[in-house]
C-alpha cells in the first residue's frame, strides 16, 4: 500500500487528543462531602468499572475515527495487478491510405492485401473496423466482429485525389478510442509520405490505450515528375493568342528532359521540351493558345513513365466572351478625358470593357442598365430622367464613376451621389502652385495595385462635402480627392478632379494606368478568379437572393454531385476529384471549374523511421502489432473505503457519545 500524499500522516498526532481526554486526564476524584453514605453500596465500584469500560469504547471509536481521517487525507492506494497478455475487448482498426500518392505503382492494392491478412488473423469474436484516410478519414465499416464485412469494406476502398493527413487520422483514432472506451490496435497501411506529417507533432498524439502499428509500403522514395503549376488567364475578351506558363517539378529525380504539351478542349495546341534539373524545376511558356468563344478546358501534360502518372497533367479553364460595354459620358467638344481613360485601359491589357462615348445631350434614350459601368466625366447639366435612371441603376447594383472639373464647379451638388459642392479650389501664384495627394486608403480596390501618387500635381479640385461617403484619398489641405458613396447595391465613385491633364497631370503618371484598370475592374465587378482550384476546396453555389433555386453540379466523371434536395438547399460544394466540374448556377451563369490535386502529394519521399517511431511512442505498448501486453500494475485508490469507514465510525461515536451526554445533561 502506498500514499499519494504521505505528509498528511503527520496529522496522526491528533490522536493524542482522545488519549488525553480519556486516559491521561484522570477522572476528578476530589472528595465530595455527603450527608450519609447509608444508601450507597460497595458495588458502586463495579459500576464505575463498567462506566470506564464504556468510556474506553468511546475512546477507541474516537481514536479510530481520527486515524482514519488522517489516512483519508494521506490518500492511500494499493497496487492492483492488471491481467497480462490478452487485452480483452481490444478492437483492431485497419486504416488504409487512399490519397493520390497511393495511386503510384500498386501501393493501394498492396495495402488492401496486407489489411485483409490482418483481418483474417483476427480470432472469432474479435471486433475490427476499416478506415480509409486521405485529407479526411472515412469509416468504411462499423466496429464489428463480422470479418467478411470488414474484408468487403477493404475491397470497396478506391484511390482518391486527396492529399495525405496523418494528423486527421490520429484525431479519428483518438475519437474512436474515446467513444468505444476499449483498447485499440491500429494498423496503418500507407506510403507514409513525409508531406503527410503535420507541422505540429502534437497533432499525432494517440490515447494511452491505442497501440499503433505502421506498415510502410515504400522504403525508398521513387522519382516522380509533375506539372506543378500553370498560369493562364481565366477569361479573355478578344481573339489574341494567350500566354500560358507551366512549371514542371521533379522529386527525387535525376536531370531529365520532359515533353510538355498544351491542350485545349482535348486538342493539342503546342508541345515543348523542358530541361528539368535533378530534384529541380523548369518553366515552359506557350504563346499560341487561341481561345474560342465560351468555356474551354485546358490541360498541360508531361510525358509519363514516372512513379505517379496521376500528377502528370494540370487542368485549367479559360472562358472567352465579348468585351462588356461601359458608357463614358462627357461634355460636347471635350475629348481629352476619354482619350486618356481609354488609353490607360488599353495599356493595362484590360480588354474586358469596350468604352462607348456619349455626350450629355445624347442621353435621352440611353438606358444605363446594359452597361457594366458608367463614367460621368465633368458633366455640367445632366437630364433629370437620365440622372434618375442612373440612380436606379446604381441602386440595382450598377456602379458609376464621376469626375469633377470646370463644368461641375457651377453645380450645387454632385449628380447621382447628391454630395454638396462647396466650390472649386485653385492653387494660385502666391503660395503653392499645386497640391498633392497626401493620404490614400491602400485597401481600396482602385488603389491596391499602386498607391504612390506623391508626384501627381493637382492644380484645381472641386471641394465636395463627404457627408456619409467613404473618403478614399485626400489632398494636402485635407480636401477629399476620391470618395465612394454606396447607394443600394451599387457604388458611386467621385473623383474631385479630371482626367484631362488640365486640372492635374495624373494621366501622365504611371500610377494612372493601374488606377484606371483597377477602377474599371471594381466598377465592372470583374471577378477574374484563378484558372484552377485544389481538390478539397469549396465553391459557393448561391447568394441570399438565390435561396431555394436549384443548382446543378457535374463532376469530372459526368455524374451529378448534388441530390435533388441538395440542389435547392446546398450553399456550397466541395471538389473531391481532379478534373473539370460544371456548375450551373440559378442566375443562368454557367461555370467551368478546373480542379487539381495538391502537388504536395507528388513528393513521394517517405517519413523517416524515427518520425514513425516517435508517432508509435505517443501510444502505450509496443509496436509488435497486436500481441499481449506485459503484466502491469495500476494503483487502486482506497480513499472511498476509508471514507465509508469514517462515516460508520462517526455514526457509532455520536450515538455512544449522545448516551453519555444525556446523563451529563441531567446532572447539569
Amino acid at each position, binding site marked *: 500500500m502506498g500514499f499519494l500524499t504521505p505528509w498528511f500522516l503527520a496529522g496522526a498526532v491528533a490522536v493524542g487528543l482522545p488519549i488525553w481526554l480519556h486516559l491521561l486526564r484522570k*477522572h476528578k476524584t476530589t*472528595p465530595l462531602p*455527603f*450527608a*450519609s*453514605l447509608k444508601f*450507597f453500596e460497595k458495588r458502586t465500584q463495579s*459500576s*464505575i468499572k463498567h462506566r470506564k469500560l464504556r468510556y474506553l469504547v468511546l475512546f477507541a471509536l474516537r481514536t479510530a475515527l481520527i486515524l482514519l481521517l488522517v489516512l483519508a487525507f494521506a490518500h492511500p492506494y494499493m497496487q492492483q495487478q492488471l491481467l497480462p497478455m490478452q487485452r480483452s475487448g481490444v478492437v483492431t482498426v485497419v486504416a488504409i491510405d487512399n490519397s493520390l500518392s497511393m495511386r503510384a505503382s500498386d501501393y493501394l492494392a498492396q495495402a488492401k492485401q496486407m489489411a485483409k491478412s490482418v483481418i483474417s488473423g483476427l480470432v472469432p469474436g474479435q471486433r475490427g473496423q476499416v478506415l480509409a484516410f486521405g485529407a479526411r478519414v472515412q469509416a468504411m465499416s462499423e466496429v464489428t466482429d463480422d470479418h467478411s464485412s470488414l474484408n468487403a469494406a477493404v475491397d470497396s476502398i478506391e484511390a482518391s485525389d486527396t492529399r495525405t493527413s496523418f494528423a486527421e487520422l490520429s484525431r479519428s483514432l483518438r475519437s474512436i478510442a474515446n467513444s468505444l472506451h476499449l483498447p485499440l490496435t491500429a494498423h496503418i497501411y500507407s506510403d507514409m509520405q513525409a508531406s503527410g506529417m503535420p507541422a505540429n507533432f502534437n497533432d499525432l498524439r494517440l490515447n494511452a490505450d491505442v497501440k499503433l502499428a505502421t506498415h510502410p509500403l515504400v522504403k525508398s522514395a521513387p522519382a516522380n515528375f509533375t506539372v506543378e503549376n500553370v498560369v493562364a488567364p481565366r477569361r479573355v475578351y478578344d481573339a489574341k493568342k494567350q500566354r500560358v506558363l507551366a512549371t514542371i517539378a521533379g522529386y527525387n529525380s535525376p536531370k531529365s528532359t520532359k515533353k510538355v504539351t498544351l491542350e485545349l478542349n482535348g486538342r493539342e495546341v503546342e508541345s515543348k521540351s523542358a530541361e528539368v534539373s535533378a530534384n529541380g524545376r523548369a518553366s515552359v511558356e506557350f504563346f499560341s493558345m487561341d481561345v474560342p468563344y465560351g468555356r474551354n478546358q485546358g490541360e498541360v501534360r508531361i510525358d509519363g513513365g514516372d512513379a505517379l502518372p496521376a500528377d502528370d497533367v494540370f487542368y485549367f479553364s479559360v472562358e472567352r466572351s465579348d468585351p462588356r460595354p461601359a458608357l463614358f459620358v462627357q461634355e460636347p467638344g471635350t475629348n481629352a478625358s476619354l482619350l486618356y481613360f481609354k488609353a490607360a485601359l488599353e495599356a493595362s491589357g484590360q480588354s474586358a470593357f469596350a468604352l462607348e462615348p456619349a455626350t450629355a445631350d445624347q442621353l435621352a434614350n440611353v438606358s444605363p442598365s446594359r452597361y457594366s459601368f458608367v463614367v460621368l466625366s465633368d458633366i455640367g447639366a445632366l437630364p433629370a430622367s437620365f440622372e434618375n435612371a442612373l440612380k436606379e441603376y446604381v441602386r440595382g447594383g450598377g456602379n458609376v464613376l464621376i469626375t469633377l472639373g470646370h463644368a461641375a464647379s457651377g453645380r450645387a451638388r454632385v449628380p447621382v451621389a447628391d454630395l454638396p459642392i462647396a466650390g472649386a479650389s485653385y492653387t494660385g501664384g502666391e503660395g503653392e502652385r499645386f497640391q498633392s495627394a497626401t493620404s490614400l486608403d491602400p485597401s481600396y480596390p482602385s488603389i491596391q495595385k499602386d498607391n504612390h501618387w506623391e508626384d501627381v500635381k493637382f492644380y484645381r479640385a472641386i471641394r465636395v462635402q463627404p457627408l456619409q461617403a467613404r473618403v478614399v484619398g485626400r489632398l494636402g489641405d485635407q480636401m477629399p480627392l476620391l470618395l465612394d458613396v454606396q447607394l443600394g447595391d451599387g457604388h458611386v465613385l467621385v473623383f474631385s478632379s479630371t482626367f484631362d491633364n488640365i486640372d492635374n497631370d495624373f494621366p501622365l503618371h504611371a500610377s494612372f494606368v493601374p488606377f484606371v484598370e483597377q477602377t474599371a475592374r471594381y466598377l465592372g465587378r470583374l471577378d477574374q478568379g484563378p484558372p484552377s482550384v485544389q481538390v478539397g476546396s469549396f465553391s459557393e453555389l448561391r447568394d441570399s437572393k438565390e435561396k431555394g433555386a436549384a443548382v446543378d453540379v457535374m463532376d469530372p466523371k459526368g455524374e451529378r454531385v448534388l441530390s435533388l434536395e441538395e440542389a435547392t438547399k446546398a450553399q456550397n460544394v466541395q471538389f473531391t476529384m481532379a478534373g473539370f466540374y460544371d456548375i450551373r448556377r440559378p442566375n443562368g451563369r454557367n461555370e467551368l471549374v478546373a480542379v487539381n490535386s495538391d502537388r504536395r502529394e507528388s513528393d513521394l519521399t517517405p517519413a523517416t523511421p524515427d518520425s514513425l517511431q516517435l508517432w508509435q511512442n505517443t501510444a502505450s505498448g509496443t509496436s509488435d502489432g497486436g500481441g499481449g501486453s506485459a503484466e502491469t500494475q495500476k494503483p487502486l485508490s482506497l480513499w472511498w473505503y476509508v471514507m465509508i469507514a469514517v462515516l460508520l465510525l462517526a455514526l457509532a461515536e455520536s450515538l455512544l457519545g449522545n448516551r453519555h451526554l444525556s*446523563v451529563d445533561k441531567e446532572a447539569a
Partner: protein
Amino acid sequence: MLQRFLDPATLASISGLDLVAKTVVDGFVAGLHRSPYFGFSQEFAEYRAYSEGDDLRHVDWNVFARTDRCYLKRYRGETNSQLLVMLDTSASMSYGSHEVHKMDYARFVAASLVYMGSQQRDAAGLIVFDEDVVNYVAPSTRQGQLFRLLHAIEEAKVGTKTDIAKPFIHFQNFLHRRGIAVVISDFYEDPDVVVRTIEPLRYKGNEVILFHILDPQEIHPKFREPVLLVDLEEPAQSLEVSPEYAKNEYRVKINAHIEALSSKARGAGLDYFLMDTARPLDEGLREYLSVRKGIL
C-alpha cells in the same frame, strides 16, 4: 411576594435569626389572613380583665361602653400550650448543595416555630441534640423566653454523628406537660428505630411532628461524572459513586427510606413532613398549625 420572604435563599440573606423568624411568621400569617381556607382560629373563648401593658386592640369596647370596665377578648388558640422543638445538630445536618444548608434550614424552621409559639403564648422550649443532648431550654412563657430560644438556636453548632436513641431517653424527663413536640432532623437512621424511639412521646399525650429535613441533592442526586463521596459523620468512610448509580439505585433506596419512615411514623400516630431545603418554609408551618389546631 409573600412567598419570597418564605424562600430559604432569601431568608439566608437576612442577618439575625429573630428577624428571620419574624419575617417568616409575619409573612406566613399575612398569607393565612388573605387565604379563605386558612387562618387563625378566631373563635371567642372568654373575657379576661385588662392588665397594664396588654394590647388595646383586643379590648372589647362594647363591654367598656356598657360597663366602664376594660376586658380583653380571648380566643381559641390563645390557650397556653407547650411547644418543644428538638433540633438535630449531627454532622449530617451540615450538608448542603446550595447556599442554604440543612442546618440553616433547620434553624429557620426551629426559629419560626418558637416565634410563632411565643406569639400564641405557648410555652416554647428547645432541645439541641446530636448523639446526645447538647443544649436544653426549658419551655416557658416568661419574658425573654423567645430571645433565649433564638439565641440557643443560633448558637447550635454542627456536632457529631447521629444517634437518635440516646437523646430521646432524656427527652422523657423534659416533657412535663402535654404539648407539641417537633423533631427537626434528617433521620439517617433506620425508620423502625426512629419510630420506636420517638413513639413513647406520643404516649404522654403529646403530638409529635417529624420534620424530615433533606437537601435536594440527597433526594435527587445528580453527578456529571464519578465522584468520591465522603461521609460527613464518618470522614474515614468514602465511596466512589457513578452518576448512573446515583441516578438509579440510590434514588430507589432514598425514596424507600422516606416512604418507610413516613408510613411507620403515621402508623405510630406521629405526623411526618418531608421538607426540601430548596422549598419555602410555609408548608412546614402550615403543617404545625394544623396539628396545633387539632389539639386545642
